[in-house]
């Protein structure tokens, strides 16, 4: 089955991973800007990273027939440094007209601090000013519940932002309901240790339906599985769900969400 992985960090993966994903049916992916595993020293370092996301990764994916899209921001972890964050946010408009840029992301909270919140609000300002889509990172483990609610409060505090133009990622059993109820899109991240399993993701599809719901691997440089979306497809098939239901979550939904971006022009396989 053709599928999209709407959240994967390919700069941390090998070209062999592109080959494997292509063979498993991946036809498109979106790569949010995130933390490199260490704090970067200057805004120039982000300029190079944004070139990598908008130039090099795009061509590396194309060699395997995969359409590569990306999101730009300074991630929540490095947002603790407010002055660096402001320099990076000021630079982002230089890259917003690049053809594979979908919007601002993955922005959000990490430890739910004041500085993270301030930088998050400044990213929202940028997204509103340039009318960009938004991809949200929600915190992990015990910070997820309050952090997700704080993020929703900030999004809803700005009436210029429409919930159908925001995808909130890493939802789990205790946050998915609130995100969908308020009209946002939700992404379930399949992760071997700290997040959601394919079986729990399938449970949430059964309980909440397929509307505005996506799954992703969030494959990165840590313990993660870039092939997690095919694992979810397999779990859904084992439970007897129709191909149309599965396709809605792994293909139609991400395409519908991304299609709201004026630069998004995806050519489905003939």
């Amino acid at each position, binding site marked *: 089955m053709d599928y999209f992985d709407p959240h994967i960090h390919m700069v941390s993966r090998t070209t062999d991973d592109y080959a494997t994903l292509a063979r498993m049916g991946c036809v498109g992916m979106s790569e949010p800007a995130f933390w490199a595993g260490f704090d970067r020293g200057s805004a120039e370092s982000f300029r190079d990273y944004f070139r990598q996301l908008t130039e090099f990764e795009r061509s590396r994916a194309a060699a395997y027939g995969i359409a590569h899209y990306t999101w730009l921001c300074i991630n929540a972890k490095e947002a603790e440094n407010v002055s660096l964050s402001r320099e990076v946010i000021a630079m982002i408009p230089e890259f917003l007209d690049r053809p594979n840029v979908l919007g601002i992301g993955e922005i959000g909270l990490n430890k739910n601090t004041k500085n993270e919140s301030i930088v998050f*609000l400044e990213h929202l300002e940028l997204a*509103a000013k340039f009318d960009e889509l938004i991809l949200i990172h929600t915190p992990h483990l015990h910070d*997820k*519940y*309050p952090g997700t609610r*704080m993020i929703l409060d900030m999004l809803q*505090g*700005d*009436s210029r932002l429409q919930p159908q133009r925001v995808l909130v990622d890493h939802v789990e059993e205790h946050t998915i309901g609130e995100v969908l109820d308020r009209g946002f899109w939700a992404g379930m991240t399949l992760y071997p240790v700290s997040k959601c399993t394919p079986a729990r993701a399938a449970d949430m599809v059964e309980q909440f339906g397929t509307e505005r719901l996506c799954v992703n691997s969030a494959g990165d440089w840590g313990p993660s599985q870039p092939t997690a979306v095919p694992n979810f497809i397999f779990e859904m098939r084992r439970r007897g769900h129709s191909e149309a239901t599965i396709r809605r979550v792994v293909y139609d939904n991400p395409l519908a969400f991304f299609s709201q971006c004026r630069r998004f022009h995806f050519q489905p396989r003939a």
Partner: protein
Amino acid sequence: MSAQEVLDREFLEIRARILKIAASLDRIERSDSPPADPARMALIREGLELLLKDSPGRAKNVQLLFSLPYSPDWPAALGVPVGKKG
């Protein structure tokens, strides 16, 4: 799938997970002092008790048990201007 089919699929997996928790608790108990953090041990006990309750939403309830609380007054507490835009 029927409940019996789901159980047939999950039974060995559930058994293995219960064993894993049992062995982990034994491992903590036979380890040297200082003893394990009583607050976290109490959370584990509460989590296990939640599984025995005859009510749906166990996964959500376990998630909430292991979560920090949310307070709607957080913008004032942190000094962050929320809800003044648009």
